[in-house]
Every structure is written in C-alpha cells, then in structure tokens.
C-alpha cells in the first residue's frame, strides 16, 4: 500500500486512542478533585492531569492556574492544544478523509459522526457534571466504536496492521505516561507517609486505564501500589499494560514482515522491548527505580515509532 496511506492509518488510530485516554484522565481527575481533602490529599489534581496528558508546557503558556475550567477547556476543546480531544478528532478526520479508500464505511462513519457530534459540545456547557459525563461518555464510545469497527470490518492486511500499531504505540505511551506522573504515589515509601490518601490515587490510576475491576479479578486483594504497577507494566492479560501492548506490536510487525517478505530495525527493536518486559520482575523494577524504568520505556517506545516511520511510512 501507499506509504502515505499507511502513515495516515497509523496516525488516525493514534489520535483516536489519544482522545479516549484524555477523556479518561479528565474523568479520573474530576473524581479525585471532588473528594474531600481528607481522602484525596491537598494536591491539585488538575495540575497532575495536565502533566499526565503531556502538555504542561503549552498549558502554562495559555493559562496561569490549573483549575477545573481551564484544564477541561484545554484538554477537551482548545484549538491551541494540538493534542486536545477536539484537535485529535479533527486531525483524525482529516487523516480519515485523505485515506477514505483505505477505511471501511463503518470506520469512516465512526470518525465522521464523532466530528459532527463534537460541534454540539462547548466547554462552557460542561460546567454541569451531567454534561461533562455525557461528553466523556461520547468520546470513549467513539474510541470503542472506531476500534470495534476496525476490528470487525477491516481486511486483515497491511492497512489493519498499521492501524493496530498506531493504537498500541499510543496506548503504551499513555499507560507509561500516567505511571511516569504518578510514580511517586506508587513508591513503597509513600505507603507509610500517605496511608489512605494514596488509596484513591491508585484507584484513579486504574480507572484512567479502565483497569479497576480487572485489578480485583487478577489479584483478589485490596489495592497495593506494587501490584498496580505490576498490572500496568507486566501483566499481559491486562489490555493496556505495556506487556500486552508490546505483544500486540510484535505480532503486527511480524505480520507485516511475513507479508512483505523482509524485516528490519522496527521488528528487532520491538522484540527487544518485549523480551525485556517478559523477563522483568516487579520487585527488580522497584529496586532499580520505577521512574527510570518508565522514562526509559517512553524513550524506547518513541524510538520504535520513529523506526516504523522510517521503515514503512515514508
């Protein structure tokens, strides 16, 4: 297929995934911010939301203070934020338009309807919790619908694999990013210091990656920070864990190399990362530094994105 088409499919999937993640961040932050400070601590959840979304630098150029209003506006609607939900949907639709031929009708419909629907929502209307909840549900449903349409209707050929790669690289980045911002509440030391305060932080992390219920099924015990980290990093049953993302990345890259009859740096890099995740134990990760592990991972994941671009998309 055309390199440009593959590139568009890859980024289209990434942007839809990113929009959904932003919606979850806003949801989790709203929940934490609404708790009495005796439960959630006095930290500003909205500051942390901006950091988790990876746009702190841009945000503080536009706003002085991170409040519910400024952050929701910036993360959901701001045209100045290239990664706001609005911008994500806009870029996704532009990409979709330019590769209409590579999308199924259902995928196009999911994106195009979302874009039309988006114009109904305005930041000012979201001050009521009910409206905000509806908006976030709409964004998450768009992600599910797009993903589901791709899964159910696309030919299992290179277009599908590039689209999956986009989803997984973005998803791995998002999971790693939330760990990166929140790693301090997962550190063993904070257990004694923070006590119950951190409990709600852990549940917020799990909620942001829709893993709260999964946690209980897997570990069958109350929230423990190292188990939260284990679930999000190493548990390959958990769809948003780094391990699960990399298993899928390796599989999709293998499908490509099989179909094209050759492999390259992207395949090798992906396999190396997966092997590292397979062999790691959560104790060792905490011992050698959770923060270092996560920031190394983010760098590697970015490098893999660049390698895929170099090998296939240009």
């Amino acid at each position: 297929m055309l390199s440009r088409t593959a590139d568009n499919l890859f980024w289209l999937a990434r942007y839809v995934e990113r929009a959904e993640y932003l919606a979850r961040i806003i949801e989790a932050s709203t929940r934490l911010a609404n708790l009495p400070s005796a439960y959630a601590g006095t930290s500003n959840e909205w500051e942390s939301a901006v950091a988790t979304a990876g746009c702190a630098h841009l945000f503080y150029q536009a706003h002085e203070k991170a409040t519910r209003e400024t952050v929701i506006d910036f993360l959901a609607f701001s045209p100045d934020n290239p990664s706001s939900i609005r911008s994500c949907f806009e870029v996704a639709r532009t990409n979709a338009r330019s590769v209409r031929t590579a999308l199924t009708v259902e995928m196009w419909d999911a994106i195009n309807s979302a874009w039309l629907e988006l114009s109904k929502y305005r930041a000012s209307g979201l001050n009521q919790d009910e409206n905000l909840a509806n908006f976030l549900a709409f964004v998450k449903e768009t992600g599910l619908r797009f993903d589901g349409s791709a899964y159910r209707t696309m030919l299992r050929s290179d277009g599908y694999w590039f689209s999956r790669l986009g989803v997984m690289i973005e998803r791995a980045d998002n999971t790693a990013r939330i760990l990166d911002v929140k790693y301090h509440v997962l550190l063993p030391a904070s257990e004694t210091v923070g006590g119950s305060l951190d409990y709600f932080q852990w549940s917020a992390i799990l909620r942001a990656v829709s893993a709260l219920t999964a946690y209980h099924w897997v570990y069958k015990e109350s929230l423990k920070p190292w188990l939260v980290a284990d679930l999000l990093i190493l548990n390959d049953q958990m769809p948003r864990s780094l391990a699960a993302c990399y298993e899928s990345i390796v599989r999709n890259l293998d499908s490509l190399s099989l179909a094209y009859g050759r492999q390259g740096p992207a395949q090798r890099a992906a396999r190396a990362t997966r092997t590292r995740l397979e062999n790691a134990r959560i104790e060792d990760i905490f011992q050698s530094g959770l923060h270092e592990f996560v920031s190394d991972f983010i760098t590697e994941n970015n490098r893999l994105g660049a390698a895929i671009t170099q090998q296939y998309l240009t």
Partner: protein
Amino acid sequence: MAGAAPIFDEMTLADGAVRPAYETLARWLQSIPPDLLATRSREAEALFRRIGITFAVYGDAASTERLIPFDVIPRVLTSDEWGRLSKGLTQRVRAINAFLGDVYSKREILRAGIVPEDLVYRNPAFRPEMNQQPVPHGIYVMIAGIDIVRVDGDTFYVLEDNARTPSGVSYMLENREVMIRLFPELFSAHRVAPVENYTDDLLATMQSVAPRSASSDPTCVLLTPGLFNSAYYEHTFLADKLGVELVEGRDLFVKADVVYMRTTEGPKRVDVIYRRLDDDFLDPLVFRPDSALGVPGLMSAYHAGNVTLANAVGTGVADDKAVYSYMPEIVKFYLGEEPILKNVPTWRCREADELKYVLERLPELVVKEVHGSGGYGMLIGPKATSAEIETFREKLIADPANFIAQPTLALSTCPTLVEEGVAPRHVDLRPFVLTGRDKVRIVPGGLTRVALKEGSLVVNSSQGGGTKDTWVLDS
C-alpha cells in the same frame, strides 16, 4: 426566437397530458401523502452528509464542505431517447479523439481550412509539448462528459464537451444508491437501467489503454490534487470503487522514464494514471514550475511511452467553446457522417459580422467566455441588468475572439421538489462516455443537474444548482 418559445416540461405537456415515460411516476406523485417527499428529502440529505459526499466552493472560506442539493424526484428518459443519445455521444467522442490525433500530428483539418489555425495554435489549452508525440493506442479522451440540453420532445443539443477532467459521476452513482434506499416502491414499479457498472467499465477502459510495455495486469492509479480540491470526495469514491490507489503527486516519482509509487513495500511501477489534475500542474519540469501537486519527470515518462495518462495531455483544445462551434464540421470531416447530436446555434464573435449581430442583441443572448467553465464569466442577457450588459459589451469589444454567443435556450424542465411543493425546474444532462482501446462504453443516463431557483438556467453546483437521479427505462 428564443424568449417566445414555450418551455418543454418532460413530465407534463402544455395541454396537461402526462408523457408516457412519466405515467407511473405522475400517478405515484398524486397518490402519496403531501409531506412524504419532504420527509424523504431530509432523510436523503442526512444520508449524504453521513456518507460525506461534499464538495468545496472556491472562495468560500466559511464553509469548505457543502452538500450539493439533491432532488428526490427522478428524471425519466425512454430507452428510445437514450438509444439516440447514446449513438450521438459515441459519434461525437470518436470525432473528438480523431480531431486531437490530427491536431497533434498531421493537421489535415487545418490544412483543409475547416478549423482556423489560430483557434488551435493560439489556444491556451493547446500543448506544443504534445506536438508529434504519439499517445498510447492513439486515444486522447478516455473519459468525456458531454453536457446535453433538451428543448422539446425530439431535440437534444450538445451544450458543451468536457474532454479534460469532467467530474460529477460520483453523484450519478450515489444518487441512484440513495434513491433505491429511499424509494424501493418506485423501483419495483419501473424497470430502471442500472448504472452501478460504471466503475467496472472505467477500470476496463483504463486497463485497455495501458502502454505496451506494461505487464498483462497493469497497475492503474487515480491522481488527485488532494484534500482541498473541490472534487476530492469524488476522487476517493472512484478510487475505492475501482480498487486502485488514490495517489497525490508526492506519492509518485520517476526514475529512468518509468513512474513508480512509494509503497510500504518499496517502489511499485505505475502503468496508467487516471489524473484528476489539470495539465498545468502535472509536471513542474515542463509546465508550471511552482506546482507542488505534480510529478517531476512525468512528461518524459509519458513521451517515452511508459505510462498512459487518462485523459491525455492537451485535450482541452477540443472542448474549447470556440472549437465547439466547429464540431458539426469536425464530425463530418473525420467520420464522413452527419452529426446525430446537434450543436446549440452559436455565433463566433471572432467573425466581424457575427460580432455585429451579437452586439445588437445582447439582452436576448447568452454570451460565454471561450475558455470559461463552471458558469463563471458568462452573461445571460435576459437576466442581466442594463449596467451588467454594458460592462459585458466593453469586455466583448475589447477581445471578441474570447467569446461566443448562443440564443437563450428554452431548456426543458422536470418536476422538482421546492419549498412550495412540486414545481418545474430547468435541467441539463451530463452522460459520461468512456473510450477504451476495445470499445466505447456509456452507462445509461448520466448526471442530471437542476437549477433550483425558479426560472434559473444555471445548473452548476457552484452556482446553487442541484442534482437528480436519471432513469433510462427499459422498454
């Protein structure tokens, strides 16, 4: 002569009788509840918006994506009417191809003095780069859109030939899909000839004109100027139905006079390019050097015979409005046949006595720029203010060769859903004629465009026109 002619309605004759082709439809229109058409019309609009069938209007920054209004009442032609049209269209496009082959090689028609030399040589659409250059299989115009108007029960005129990159075929196809979805009862009451095989015909046509050096399974692509082109939706639609890659200039490159596209598996050779990009932008090394839309080196690959461009370069010299007036002579010269389809009577303002006639009758004539298209740059005498007529008169005197004039035609009307209910509105018809190495293919019907404003004759989508589904009834 023009203003006085009664207007021919394709459904209802002046005495109130319904023409046979419309009998079932007319009965149905009478039997349905009054709001049914409006309801279905809204459903149709929602469908079109959902599918994303939009077009862009140049110079209209506020709404870059608009829908072309769709009228839910179909236009009906009998198979006899279509049979005649289809023969005439085939003949006309054969003549156009013969003319282009001649103009870029032996120029017999110029030497015979039938078409004036300067009309060809000084025509901005004439491409000296194509001089004495053979094109694959000698076919220049593989895809033509011939605009037809009707003035009475028997007379169809060719209003305009489009031999460059005619658009609108996606509307023909989507209109039919939407109609079948919204009005299944009408399709069981009529035998409507299908149009859905158009894209298969187009692919067969493209494959048939692949260069001889191509493999037996030639690679065809559709070249688009990109997202911002007004017909972009159509490009994606066609590429999808054809099952070919939709490429932009940057997806292609030329190496050793062979065209390749950049794919995830490395370079892949391209044999046939259905290009929806004007000549000017095709190759910055030969035409406009500032074009970022084209492919450097494309023309040398073309001249080397390694790629087919559909349509060929330089076809615009045949669909020019001044050359148009010579089409009856062109048909006779190459085919030795009488033209089956008539031209609209046309005055060539380049000729002094005809200019004089035109200047005297500006308020009753339609005056068009020879190279204009899309309804821009024309004067419709009966609808113009006297100030507009005077401004136009100055333009005409300053550069008479740039204009032709025609009588204000009493274009036929068809019943159309408007705010006040069902009312007659003027229509035209653009059938699409495909010319391959093996044969000419035309799907029955074409795109009917309708002027939605009462009394208006301008059907162009850029000027507020709409479209209708066009039915050719099987006899």
